[in-house]
């Protein structure tokens, strides 16, 4: 099992973390003005790159804080972990 470096707790086992999907998905500025299709894109559509991917992770069994990590989707290697 690989270790993920929580910005607060340090390296911990992967099972302590939970995944939160793609990072940096902005909430629409005017949600009410969106068409159903635009809203569906905001809610359901995410990037699926082959390579580095910025994601949200929560240290669910530790400090319970969310952070953003960059993970290489080809190797599952974590390249960077940043608080918030």
């Amino acid at each position: 099992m690989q270790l993920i470096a929580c910005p607060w707790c340090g390296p911990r086992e992967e099972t302590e973390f939970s995944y939160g999907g793609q990072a940096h998905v902005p909430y629409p500025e005017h949600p009410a003005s969106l068409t159903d299709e635009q809203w569906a894109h905001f809610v359901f559509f995410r990037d699926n790159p082959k390579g580095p991917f910025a994601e949200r992770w929560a240290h669910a069994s530790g400090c319970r804080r969310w952070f953003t990590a960059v993970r290489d989707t080809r190797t599952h290697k974590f390249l960077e972990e940043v608080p918030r």
Partner: protein
Amino acid sequence: MADGIPGLTLVHPLEGRRDALAAASVGTLLSLDLEAPVAAVDLRVDPDGSGPAAVGAAVGAALPARPDTWTALPSGLALRLGPDEWLLTSTTADPQDWEFHVDETASAHGGMAVDVSAQRTSVRVRGTAARDLLAFGCSLDLRPAAFPRGRCAQTLLGQAAVVLVAYDVDDLALIVRSSFAGYVADWLVDAAAEFQP
């Protein structure tokens, strides 16, 4: 800690497993004991503001500044659970008084404290095999050099979330949610079978 509501007796959540834990203990190698319930509050306050210092002054000792560490209070512990979260325990205060005492100071600095006395319970794990026992179900590096006195950590033991507290090389405590305590006690008894003569 006071007896609480008149007419009701405070019972340890693991009272039914007290004998099993005692039976799993092995002389100086391993001893598993229930710790008496304590008053506990969960403190949330901005770590960069004046709150932590003010609360520290109110409870009689500085709060731990570094991640995953604890400091001793005059009658209890202050454990740092997160960037802006501390667990403060007291063996002598009444839970309501302890919450009021800490919250009075914390709220003046934009923070808050909530009574969580009934949320967790504690098992003391002592003996030369204590760290080996916990290492069976915990992925942390528990060697004394990496997890010395003064460290604490929220992590998983088996499938349960626990707070590990290092008092000494062969003296640790497990703070666990009351609802998971039975599982953890059973896990400890099962793992301790390894050390039976």
